[in-house]
């Protein structure tokens, strides 16, 4: 790997570590918020009845995917901006995007973008149309299904070159 590619991989690794920490913090906050009096550890409380509220977890997922997409966007602006400095530097870094590891990362990124976009539209609809709780839950299910369908279809296209 060239120096530029190493720097890009290092920056991406830092983003992924920070994102994992943020996700852990957000999930922990969501559980502790509902269970401030509990004596057991927060990890052992995952999956309780109070946690089976999909809209709560949609809120957590919306936050996490939002931070993930924004963090990658910052890095992506930098790596695309390399073209203004040197087209060969741009080519050098962007060779990484065709590796298997980055293709897998792109799939997860696509799932995150899809969910964040669709759930964002659901929240806007909630504000504008004043839909009821049951409808909001159904719309969330629709968001999840569409995310999985579109994401999986796109993932096949993204991973096809390394799978064949």
């Amino acid at each position: 790997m060239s120096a530029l590619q190493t720097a890009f991989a290092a920056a991406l690794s830092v983003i992924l570590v920070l994102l994992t920490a943020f996700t852990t913090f957000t999930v922990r906050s969501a559980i502790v918020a509902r269970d401030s009096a509990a004596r057991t550890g927060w990890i052992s409380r995952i999956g309780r009845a109070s946690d089976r509220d999909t809209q709560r977890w949609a809120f957590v997922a919306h936050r996490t995917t939002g931070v993930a997409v924004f963090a990658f966007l910052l890095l992506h602006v930098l790596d695309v901006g390399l073209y203004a400095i040197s087209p060969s530097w741009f080519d050098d870094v962007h060779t990484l995007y065709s590796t298997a590891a980055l293709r897998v990362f792109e799939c997860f990124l696509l799932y995150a973008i899809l969910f964040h976009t669709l759930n964002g539209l659901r929240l806007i609809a909630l504000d504008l149309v004043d839909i009821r709780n049951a409808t909001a839950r159904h719309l969330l299910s629709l968001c999840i299904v569409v995310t999985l369908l579109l994401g999986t279809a796109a993932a096949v296209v993204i991973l096809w070159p390394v799978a064949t």
Partner: protein
Amino acid sequence: MAVLERSRRQTNIETAGDAPATTVRLTIARSDAGAVREFRVALTQPAVVLDALLAGQRLDPSLGFRYSCRVAMCGTCAVRVNGRPTLACQQPITPDTDELLLEPLAGFAVVRDLVVDTSPFWNAWRRVVPWFMPGGPREALPAGDASRAEVERGLDCIACGACWSACDVVVTNAGYLGPAALNRALTLVADERDGARAERLRVAGQQGGVTHCHSILGCTAACPKGLDPSASIRRLRRWSLVA
């Protein structure tokens, strides 16, 4: 963990003849680390969670919880049953129930066992000026009037705190007014006879107000009176933006 047991006759003061009984194992969050947490009580059907708590208290008189009206009017007995906030006097225990986990409302400091300090809830309630202030037309709103329907939409709130317990935002944002206070604000703002509309909209629109709601809808799912505080907040948000 010790399990206290009593016979059906001892735990049910209203047992009559061959009325069907349900034996339930209660796990109750106790503030004293050494206190008994698990109880086995027998209840005559139909039974509600408050019956189980009273049966548990007969086994251990130190068990702390609040209740008053027993008919879902006062909002005093709100607790979490299997993690979900509800009124103990309203939550039925079905004949096929084997176990129940009872905990104090989330988002409040625990005073003792299931008793919580609701001061933050009432402080938020006070901030929206929760009483009617005459200032508009003095005539009663006629039945069927659109304005009256808007008022009645959130009027049944009994301030039990279940929505507060279900709201993740109040825990992470101490300044947030919470669903009940904002629902109360909407009820008064919607009333065209009210004279403090501008003040209430100002409070609702400022820091800690309607903009902090993330539309998780936990409050709406939890409300034991079937109200929709989340819709009230969204409506109030639109009105405060226009104002």
